[in-house]
């Protein structure tokens, strides 16, 4: 086999291609080409009023707009030294639960599962296992319903602002979701049980996991940036260790650690670093299904997502039950010049924002480090490790296996800037 080429990598968010150059059966070059056009968000944030930032950055990614809204409001609140209320914090977590549910259910069932079950898409899957797909859609819908209940719509919700929420969402529609959430929790538990039985390709790798960590809760919007290699930094210190590089073959920046290492963000990393903070049902799902941590097979990130689905449903139920809005929905902001960074755990991994604002609240500088950008070098390394296995395979299978690997990262290429083209070329 001379080349492997995926002219259009499907079921990833955005557009990219994959190229593997071989010599004597060994990979000599691996490139994850990002064709997603550059959109210059950091550029046109400059000069905008701070309240516009969460709405604008949401448009970086239609799959995880909440993550962009949450990281940006965190950074801007930091810059203003504004402390949000616990109620606001809980509601933000609920929003995040909605996004995890929607995004993970989409990825697990509609994007990755077809690979494991040998189907081209969930629609084809629906033909042979209609109930699975119907349940998956129902699970996903609950996530969207939470987002809709809080922010009016699931893609680019409109309620979040720097300082809290424009207005408390009405309690009744959220409470009305409880029966569905309870159903979702059970469905998520069943998903974990099912996930561990799937036939994953063999691939075990040595990862440096990086995620937010918080001692009291499963970190999503709060805590320090921890690494499985021992580094523990505050969010404001993030850029001291983690760098972005602009590589020639890609419109997405690539993230490396300061010493040139590759690291992994996302569900595998979160589970590895934060499993102790999982809520009981998620803990139980881990135990019942004898899931050993850390998971180091990238294909098995599906299992991690399934566990996080349990966690998200469980937490959503808690927050919805306790939800009783009172007090102001947002802070009265006191504008001042300042700088702040914020990070949150998008479904795909750590998302870091840093802003400088002037005394009028206008943005002077913006930096955004999306999860997929950080994972790109790691994906390339994984593929490198995969090469010995796939060179022996027939072209179609090799392509599929490589493509599947990329897909298992749930790469949100729109965020990293995005459509994959896999090309493995023999340089002889």
């Amino acid at each position: 086999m001379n080349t492997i080429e995926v002219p259009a990598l499907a079921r990833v968010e955005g557009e990219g291609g994959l190229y593997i150059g071989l010599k004597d059966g060994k990979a000599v070059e691996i490139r994850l080409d990002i064709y997603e056009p550059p959109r210059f968000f950091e550029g046109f944030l400059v000069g905008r009023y701070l309240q516009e930032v969460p709405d604008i950055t949401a448009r970086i990614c239609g799959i995880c707009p909440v993550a962009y809204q949450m990281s940006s409001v965190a950074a801007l609140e930091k810059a203003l030294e504004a402390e949000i209320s616990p109620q606001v914090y809980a509601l933000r977590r609920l929003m995040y639960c909605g996004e995890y549910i929607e995004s993970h259910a989409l990825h697990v069932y509609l994007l990755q599962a077809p690979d494991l079950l040998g189907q081209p898409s969930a629609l084809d899957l629906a033909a042979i296992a209609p109930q699975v797909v119907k349940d998956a859609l129902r699970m996903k819908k609950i996530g969207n319903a939470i987002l809709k209940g809080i922010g009016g719509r699931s893609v680019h919700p409109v309620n979040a602002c720097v300082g809290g929420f424009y207005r408390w969402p009405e309690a009744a529609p959220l409470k009305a979701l409880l029966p569905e959430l309870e159903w979702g929790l059970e469905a998520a538990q069943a998903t974990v049980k099912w996930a561990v039985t799937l036939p994953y390709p063999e691939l075990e790798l040595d990862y440096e996991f990086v995620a937010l960590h918080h001692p009291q809760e499963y970190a999503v919007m709060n805590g320090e940036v921890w690494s499985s290699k021992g580094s523990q930094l505050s969010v404001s210190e993030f850029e001291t260790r983690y760098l972005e590089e602009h590589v020639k073959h890609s419109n997405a920046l690539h993230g490396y650690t300061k010493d040139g290492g590759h690291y992994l963000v996302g569900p595998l990393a979160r589970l590895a670093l934060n499993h102790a903070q999982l809520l009981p049902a998620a803990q139980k799902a881990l135990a019942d299904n004898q899931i050993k941590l850390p998971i180091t097979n990238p294909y098995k990130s599906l299992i991690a997502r399934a566990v996080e689905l349990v966690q998200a449903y469980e937490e959503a139920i808690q927050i919805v039950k306790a939800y009783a809005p009172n007090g102001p929905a947002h802070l009265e902001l006191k504008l001042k010049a300042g700088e702040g960074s914020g990070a949150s755990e998008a479904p795909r991994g750590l998302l870091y924002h840093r802003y400088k604002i002037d005394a009028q609240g206008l943005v002077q500088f913006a930096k955004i480090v999306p999860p997929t950008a950080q994972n790109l070098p790691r994906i390339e390394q994984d593929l490198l490790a995969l090469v010995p296995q796939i060179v022996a395979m027939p072209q179609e299978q090799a392509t599929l296996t490589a493509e599947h690997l990329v897909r298992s990262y749930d790469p949100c290429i729109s965020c990293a800037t995005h459509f994959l083209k896999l090309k493995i070329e023999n340089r002889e």
Partner: protein
Amino acid sequence: MTLTPKTQQKPKVAVYKFSSCDGCQLSLLNLEDELLDLAAAVDISYFLEATRTVKPGPYDVGIVEGSITTPHEAERIKEVRQQCKFLIALGTCATAGGIQALRNFASAGEYAKTVYAHPEYLEYLETSTSIPENVPVDLVIWGCPVNKNMALEAIAALLQNRRPRFPPSPVCLECKRNGTICVVVSQGIPCLGPVVHGGCGALCPASGRGCYGCFGPSSVANFNALVQGMQPRDRYPNETATLLRSFSSAAPAFKTAAELAYKLGANPASAHGGKETL
């Protein structure tokens, strides 16, 4: 056009992505209750976000998300047009250039330098343009993101050979039907509702904030009157202007209106200077 099959063949539908956030395609996937019916009614022949299967064209319906921002895209959209009998521009990127059209008001090169260490690696166009500015389009569905029910209605209308029923009225009417109180009048919040296409369900005013125009300019509206009336209510510098210069900034009506708002904002008598927030 009519999609009514003469034979029992289902119409072939292709979904394409150009420069965008994927949100409008996702809105299609978010049709959880209708997705399977939809898949039964049409032949989803090309939809990379949903399936690896690529059936060869030509297609009966092409749905395009995203705007044109690179030389490659400018070429590709022409091929798409040739492949598709009926072409739908889906979402504000496709219908008005999207948020990335903000580059049209500055130098994309400057932005590239801000964001990328090696702008020379990048290939991009100086402007982000809508699909209709590049190729003829048969239907536009506005929204950032689109309202999934409007997208569904468009497909249903095609299948049934009728005109899609999109809301003809501005956001204001939706507010009133929802029982939402006007934020302009009761709280002095600038709001683009009077000049923006309805269809979103008037979400922002229901959340206690002004409409930020993500559904683009309404086909008949009085932009001059809106700017004259709204700009003096700005709570931070150029609020009305930046509202207009956001998600649908390159839509001609918004472009001119924003220019007027900036001009009024430059007059110190009406500038406030960030005293209040929110």
